[in-house]
């Protein structure tokens, strides 16, 4: 959907964020290449969630630059960033609880087709929107739960729906915030497989604590420690990196 030939989708340059005197992001430099699956790991309090909040527009940066497909998105509102092709999921499930699973996706599909303030036709008559929503529901394997209110889905179904809603708006760049948080081993394996399937043609950036997910799913890894990137590389390079071992991974995780 994006014909931009630039091999880099997202570039962070000296990105800063401070709350009062407290510097949370202290000059982050990062480039995410088109089509890769890029993990951000780091100890608690390293600023991973803040980084996602800055990229997705939930918080304005204090300094530095963020460029999406070559255009600055510094300080843009979340909806504007989404329309430019970047969507995010939430660590704490964030769905439309009283609406059905299908409708949760359909809201996002409406946005993809630019249907926002349409007051003059029934949503039933929007063939393409309904077809796309059904297709997406199929892809996240919740077809049999189409008419169940999102609040009544099981936790792992809600996590699948969370991924589906992130994909629904058609963004090319997908940010997933701890997609397997709170899941059992089997559920985690299922979720990793699902993420792999549904993001084949996307660029993925994921914050994750589970190292098996990170090393199993991602092509490249950035290690964020105290608001700066300590290292970026392939899983093998990160495993082998002495500074990363010292700062974060320890020995048993590798």
């Amino acid at each position: 959907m994006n014909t931009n030939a630039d091999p880099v989708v997202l570039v962070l340059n000296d990105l800063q964020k401070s709350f009062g005197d407290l510097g949370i992001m202290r000059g982050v430099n990062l480039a995410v290449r088109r089509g890769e699956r890029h993990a951000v790991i780091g100890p608690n309090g390293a600023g991973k969630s803040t980084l996602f909040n800055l990229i997705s527009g939930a918080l304005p940066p204090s300094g530095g630059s963020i460029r999406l497909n070559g255009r600055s998105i510094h300080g843009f509102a979340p909806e504007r960033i989404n329309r430019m092709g970047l969507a995010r999921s939430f660590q704490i499930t964030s769905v439309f609880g009283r609406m059905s699973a299908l409708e949760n996706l359909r809201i996002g599909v409406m946005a993809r087709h630019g249907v926002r303030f349409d007051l003059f036709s029934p949503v039933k008559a929007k063939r393409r929107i309904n077809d796309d929503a059904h297709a997406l529901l199929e892809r996240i394997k919740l077809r049999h739960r189409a008419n169940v209110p999102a609040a009544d889905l099981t936790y792992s179904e809600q996590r699948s729906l969370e991924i589906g809603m992130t994909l629904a708006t058609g963004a090319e760049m997908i940010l997933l915030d701890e997609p397997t948080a709170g899941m059992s081993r089997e559920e985690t394996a299922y979720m990793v497989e699902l993420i792999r399937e549904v993001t084949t043609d996307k660029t993925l950036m994921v914050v994750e604590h589970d190292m098996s997910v990170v090393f199993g799913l991602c092509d490249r890894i950035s290690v964020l420690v105290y608001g700066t990137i300590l290292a970026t590389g392939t899983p093998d390079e990160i495993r082998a990196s002495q500074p990363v071992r010292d700062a974060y991974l320890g020995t048993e995780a590798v």
Partner: protein
Amino acid sequence: MMRTRIVIGVLMAVPLVAVPPLLGLGWQNTLNSMLIASLFAAAFNLLMGQGGMLSFGHSAFYGVGAFAVLHVMKAAEAGFPFPTPLLPLVGGIAGLLLGAAAGFLATMRSGVYFSLVTLALAELLHALAPNWSGVFGGESGLSSMRMPWLGIDFGSPIEVYYLTLAWVAVSLALLYAYTCTPFGRLTLALRDNERRIRFMGFNAHATKTLVFSISGLFSGIAGGLLAISTETASYGILSSQVSAMVVIHTFVGGSTIFLGPVLGASLFTLFSFLMSEVTRAWLLYQGLIFVLVMLYAPKGLAGIFEAHWSNRGRLPWSRLAVPYAAALASSMLISGATTFAIQIIEQVFSSPYKAAALGTGVWPPVSVLGVSVLPASFITWLMIAAAFAAGIAGIIRTRPVIATLWADGSEGDAPAVRVPTSTAA
């Protein structure tokens, strides 16, 4: 589902069209007021039930609609040729414009702060109106006359009633159609999770402002209909009592169901018509009903119907009959005892009674529901207390029985009721 809705519509429409000509003027006026209150509550609930925004200042849009219509009626009286049947549209436009401005400001905040901003804006208008005679006619307000149009002279209440009925029917149909549009679905998503819609590419502030404006539009139409019916409007229509009234109507009826507010507004308007003749304590009864519904049926009266309807195939009706009858009898004992107590107290504290009692030193009997009772008698209060206690005991006994039968019959709790969710293709 669609067929059910059409059936509901026809069942409501036929008696509303056919019966009123056979009724007296008082009833025609009451039905007219019920329709107007219904539309106002439905318009309010677009914002509250569907958009998740609780406005405490909806009298502003209702009132502005009424004043706008009166200005055009006065102009029509002076010779400006405006068709009387289209007057409510003027109220709607006024409500829409004020709604857009107030909505833009109020929706910058959410939750309690949103409610307080709406309250403050309406109070501002309410304080301003009596001092601004050019627009609001000062303290005495504005009044005018309905002009004839195309041979209809709009002189009798029944003509006004049919005009109201037509506007309310069309407005409710449009409000229902709204829930089926993409923007109507977005409104529900906004209510459920405002943050998420922003991250899905929707401008939440613009969305909220538009929902607010449309609610203002239909509130303005309701206010306009009121102005046409009464041929007058004063600043009292902007008061917080009017705002509170629409909140109560909506919650008693049930904000999670499309027709809930219509039910609440109709019943309360009817109740006030019937009761205000009988007792000055009718507002107290309304308040009691409101508190009871909020405590024991938070989804409102329509929520009770909805829960029964959606479980109709599963509930053991024959086994429910006796406990339901017992619960009804107990409720009537409680209501009866409460009514007697309130009515005795009301009459004893009225000035003529006090004067008589103080003058003679005796407490003469008072009449409640046609029964003569002695307010100073121990027996009177013992009987009231006994009836009340018996009712409470009956409720305590039957509630668990009913709850058990419900748990057996329905799978889990009654489903969370909501505005149509099944418009999925």
